[in-house]
Every structure is written in structure tokens, then in C-alpha cells.
């Protein structure tokens, strides 16, 4: 058992639980940041150094900044946060999620082919070079499509954030 993984996963889970239970999104965002970093560490222990790096860059660098930026922009006061579900609603959902987790664990643990050490087959596993070759040879087309998606999403975000939703309002 990799001790790094143990620590990282413990941190990640703890911050995840905190994140979903925080009332104020600012705190949630902070916990999510911690969680992302811990997941990046997990990637490292799974012999995926390139991914770990990208993960940090994309999630903490881009996505989290975006979140925080929006939170600042909205600048929600505590009274604007709105109501949350009562415990009677949340408890069954928690049970449901726990049940899902239970099922998944059962499936994972009952598969003997997964009970093997997480060891990379070679030293260059997950390196920039290897992933890059794969990405631009075998998966070139999906890669291009994804870039298209991002462009469309950028435009979409621009249009959405710029335009007032007055006509949506009118139809509802």
C-alpha cells in the first residue's frame, strides 16, 4: 500500500465531504481546491505524472479560478444564499448515495482481476511523450473534435453571460 496514496486519498475525501456540506460556496471552493491537489497527488502514485501536471494546471489553474471569480462576481451575501433542503430530504439522498457506493465497492472488491498492484509496466508509462504520441496519432480526430467543443463552449459562455435572459423570462 502506497503511503502517499493513503494520505492523499484521506485528504481528498475529507475535503470532498467538507465541500458538499459547506453552506457558503467560498468555503466549498477552497475545499475543492484542496481536493483537486490531493487527486493530482493520487495521479502521481498511479504513475501518471503528465496527467498530474495537467490536472493541477487545468483544475486548480483554470477551473477553480473560474469558480472563485464567479463567486466574487456574484458576491453573494449570506441571506442571498437561499434555502437548502431540510435534513429529511438530505438523509434519504445520503442513504441512496451510500447504497450506490456500497454497490460499487462490492463490484470492485468481488473482481479478483483488480486485486493486483498498481505498477506501471515500464518507466516511460504516462510520460508526456507517450501520451502525446497516443493523443496525436490514434486519437487525433477526437482531440480535434474536443477542441471544437471547447471553442463552441467559449462562444456559448460569452453569449450567455453577456445577454440578458429576458426572452427566456417571457416564455416561462
Amino acid at each position, binding site marked *: 500500500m502506497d503511503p502517499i496514496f493513503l494520505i492523499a486519498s484521506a485528504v481528498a475525501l475529507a475535503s470532498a465531504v467538507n465541500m458538499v456540506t459547506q453552506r457558503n460556496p467560498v468555503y466549498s471552493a477552497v475545499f475543492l481546491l484542496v481536493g483537486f491537489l490531493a487527486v493530482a497527488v493520487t495521479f502521481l502514485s498511479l504513475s501518471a505524472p503528465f496527467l498530474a501536471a495537467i490536472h493541477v494546471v487545468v483544475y486548480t489553474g483554470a477551473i477553480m479560478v473560474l469558480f472563485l471569480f464567479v463567486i466574487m462576481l456574484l458576491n453573494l451575501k449570506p441571506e442571498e444564499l437561499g434555502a437548502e*433542503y431540510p435534513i429529511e430530504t438530505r438523509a434519504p439522498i445520503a442513504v441512496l448515495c451510500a*447504497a*450506490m457506493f456500497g*454497490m460499487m465497492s462490492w463490484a470492485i472488491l468481488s473482481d479478483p482481476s483488480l486485486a493486483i498492484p498498481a505498477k506501471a509496466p515500464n518507466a516511460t508509462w504516462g510520460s508526456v511523450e507517450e501520451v502525446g504520441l497516443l493523443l496525436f496519432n490514434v486519437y487525433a480526430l477526437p482531440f480535434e473534435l474536443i477542441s471544437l467543443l471547447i471553442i463552441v463552449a467559449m462562444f456559448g459562455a460569452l453569449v450567455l453571460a453577456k445577454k440578458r435572459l429576458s426572452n427566456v423570462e417571457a416564455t416561462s
Partner: protein
Amino acid sequence: MEIESSLYLIPLLPLVGFLVNGLLGNQLPKWLVAVIACTGPFIAFLLSVQALQALATHPEGLHQAMFSWISTGTLNVPFGLQVDALTAIMLMNVTGIGTAIHLYSYGYMHADPSFSRFMAYLNLFLAAMLMLVMGDNLLLLFVGWEGVGLCSYLLIGFWYQDFANVDAGRKAFIVNRIGDFAFLIGAFTLYSLTGTLEWHGMEQAVAALDLNAMVVSGPMTGMPIMVALMIAGLCLFGGATGKSAQIPLYVWLPDAMAGPTPVSALIHAATMVTAGIYLLGRMDFLFVLLPAVMGVIALVAACTALLSGLIAIAQNDIKKVLAYSTVSQLGFMFAGMATGFFHTGLFHVVTHAFFKALLFLGAGAVIVAMHHEQDIRKMGGLWKDLKGVSILFIIGSLALAGVPPFAGFYSKDAILAAVYYQAASPGASPEWMVIFGMLVFTAGLTAFYTTRLVVLTFFGKPADEHRHLHEVHWTMMAVLAFLAALSALAGVLGLGTWLDTFTHHVWSPPAVEVNEALEHTAHYVAMGSSTAVVVLGIGAGLFLYLSESRREALDRWTKGSGARVYGMASHKFFVDEFYEAFIVNPIGWLAKLLWGVVDRIVIDSGIVEGSALSVSGFSAALRHTQVGAVSAATTSTLVGVIVVVLWLVLHG
């Protein structure tokens, strides 16, 4: 020009006339419309004459194959035309009288704003009728059959601004459709027995059938062939009762008088209504095998003749009298066909076409002169003002009444003789004697109501002394004279015997054996009895209606003690009301009931929306645990995933 290869022109020419007048008629001057409309039928008439002459050298008939119309599987329906002796007679009848009535129509209708439409419809009718008699298979006959029905519908409702006319047309079409329903079943039955719809093929196949065997394949497997043939025969006759106005489907014909009078003359007297008789003649090979069916036909025909003869006595609309008389005469024709001496029926078709067309057209002239008044009680004394029309009309009436030596006498006599021959043949079923009696009585009735009609219309005191009669167009008079000549002379000149020899080879020999002695007896019996009843009928008619005082007494009787008897006849024995109450209305109620209850409540609200409601009820219950719609949706997704996974785990 070789006539056999130009047969197609006969139905095509009127069709062209229809297209030209139908599409451009509004732009053309009326005389041109009339010329176009009359040219087609006239050339068709000339071609028909040629075809008739050609038959002398081609006794087996002329045939022109055109193309394959419907061909699939084992079914092959060609589009081909044929002319044999039977068709040739019908052709002469249709094109000859058709042309005359076209000419008459110019005089009768030229003032109507929709004149071109009228002529176009007439042309279309002629094309369809020619198709009917010339088609070389049952389905082509059906094309014409439905086509003439359509034209009848259009022409009855020609003055469509009045719902009464339109409804009469609709009634005609729908009642005919009921007959067509039977027709189709008969055609299907025959097809499954013979595997073809062509006349020649069917004739050979029917001849090849072993009448004592069972059907071995197809839908009627295990049924005796005789029974299957009887079903076919009865169903085809059912179709004929629609088109040719026999019990139980005759009710449309009197209503059809709502159409313009030339239409009544052409379609509802001379040509279309004889299509059923043509069908019987065409299918003679089938009917001669089925004496029981022939008996049924004769009985139905005699009942129709009698019933409508009775109704005709009590009608006051000049056209209604003629209409019921037509139904009655059609009964005679069917009776003639049913004896197996098919030429007698055909003979009556021809003579009836002459004198009934004459009568209708004469009535048309009277109606025009009277400014569209049709009630004979309001006429009277027309003799003085309309001498020409009166004479011609009376000639037609004498022919209808069966007074020798007019044409009607000969043909009616031939039928009565044939029926008596049947009845008196050894081993004949007793019903034939009854039928003979009914027909003789009806012949008397015919003479009676014809006399009544003539007396009330042309003699006696005018109902209105100050009337100004409308002038009758010369084309109308010319046509009337032509038809009157035919009605007066056709019998004397030996049309009957000529028809017998000319068509003799096309008929299948009748089932009864020929007995010359009996034939002579039959002739004398028929002639004697019919002459007697005709004299009686005319005498009674003159006696009752010629004298003013007796007529008033009669009027009092019909309103007083005789009201019940007279009312039955004048209300047409309440047949229409009966159909209305027991067939038409229940179907309407059923439709409304099914729509209101089954469709909207049981199926729609009950099953469809019920299931939808139960779903929404279920989710309404779920909603108590969930406040938001989005969360509810996602949560239920999760629940679904868990259930599916659990199921897979437990069963995988």
C-alpha cells in the same frame, strides 16, 4: 377504317367531349358547346352502326385488347373492349338515344348558366356507359358501372344550390354503393371459382366446373360448387338491384327525378338503369345453371313491378309517375331475363328506351311549357295549347300501356309469353304461375296509371285559364318525333324477331327444353290476357278520370274512407321511412355513440389518459419527498441506475 381496331374511339369520343367542355366550356359560346357535346356521341353512334354491321362477318364478336390494367399475382385484368351482339344492341341503344337526348338537352338546358357543365356531365356519362357495355371483363364493367353512378350523382344534384337535389343524388350514389358491395362479393366469389374476370375465360371456366362436386381450394373449400355459384349469382343480382332499381334498393330512382329531365330520360329510363339487365345477359352462362336463383330474380322482379305499379297510381308529380313506371318496367325486364329467354328482356330494354325516353322528354317539354310546374293536378287541358307534344306523348303512353301495335305491346307480350312458358313447362315450380299473374295484373295497372297521367295532363279543364305557355324549342320537338316514330313502329317492323335471331348465338341455351306447342300456347295466353287487362286498365282510367264529377268523387274517396288505402300508395308504402328508421338512423346513432363513448371516453380518457394519469399520480406521490424538479429528476435517475445495477448483479 377497320372497325375492330377503332373500338376504343366509341367511349373515347364522348370522353374527349367531356374534357373539352369540362375544362373550356365556360369560355365557349353555347352553340359550340352543344356542337362539341353532340358530335362525340354522334360519331360514336356511327361507329356503333359500323360495329353492328361488322358483326355479320364476325359472328364471334369484335375484340380490341389495349393494355394490361391491373396485373399482380395470378390476377390479370386487361383493358380491352369487345362488341358482340348483346353489346351491339346496347351500343345502338346508348349512342342512338344518347345522341338524341344530347340534342334535346340543348333545347332544354341552353338557358342554364351551367349549360356547359351539364353537357360535359352527359358526355362523361355516355363514356362510362359505353365502357360498361364494351368492357371485356367484369372489372371494366365495374368501372363503367361506378362511372355511370357518379354521373347520375352529379346530374341528379346538378342544381346543387337546393339541398333536396343534392341529397337525392347522394342517396342514389350510396344506395348504388350498397349494391356495389354485393356486386364486389359476387365478383370475388366468381374469381375464386374461375380464377379470371374476363367474360370468355369465366364462361369457359364455369362450363368446365363439375356442378355436383365440392370446391377444393380457395375460401369456399368444402362448399358444393352449386352453392358457391348461387352465392355469386345472388350477389351479382344484388348489385343489379342497386343499379336497376329493384327491391330492396329501388328507393333511389324516384328521388333521382330531382335532376333535369333529359337526365331522367337518358340515365334513369333509357340507359343506366338497364345496366343490371345487361349484367344478367352478360352473365347468362352463369344464370342458366341456377334455376333457383332465376326463380328468386323473377319473384323479386314481379314484386317490384307490382309494388311500383301500385305506387305510380297515387303519384301526382308527372316525373314521379314515370319514375315508378320505370321501376315497374325494369321489373318486367328482369322477369324476362329470369325466364332464360334473354332476348325478351333485351327487347323490352330497347323498346322501353324508346317510349320511356319519349315520355320523359315529352314530360320535359310539358314542364318547360308550364314554367317548371310538375304537378299533374295543376295541368289539365294542355291538349289545346300543345297539340304536337300531346300527340307524341300519347304515342309514348300507348306504347307504355302495351296497346297493339305499339312497340311496348310486342316486348311486354314476349316477356309474358316467356314467363307463361316457364310456368306451364312440365315440372316448373308453382311460383312461376304466381309471377305470371302478378305481371299480368301489373300490365293492367300500367295501362291504368298511364291513362290517368294522360287524361289529367292533357284533357279536362285547365287548372289555370290564364296561363302563358312557354315555347318548346325545335330541337326538342325533333327528338320527340324521332322517338315517337320508333315507339310506334319498332314492334310492327319486327324488331323482336330480328333481335331474337341476331342475338341468338350469344345466349346460353335456357334450362327448359323447347316445346313448340307450348310456345304457341304461351304466346296466345300472353297476348290474350295482356290485351284484356290493358283494355280494362285503359277503360277504368278513362272512366274514372275523364269525367269531372267522377274525378271529384274519387278525390273525396281518397280523402275520406279510402284515405288509408290511398295513403299507403301515395306514401310509397312507407319504404323510405322504414329504411330511415331501421337502417339509416341506427347507423348514425351508432356512429355518434361509438365516437362519444368508445373513442373519446373508453379509449382516450380511459386507457390512454388513464395510464398517463396513473404515472403522474405516482410522481405526485413522490413529489412529497422532493421539493425541486431538477433534483427530483436527477435523483430518480440515480434510483433507476441503482435498480438496474442491482438487477444485473442479482441476475448476472
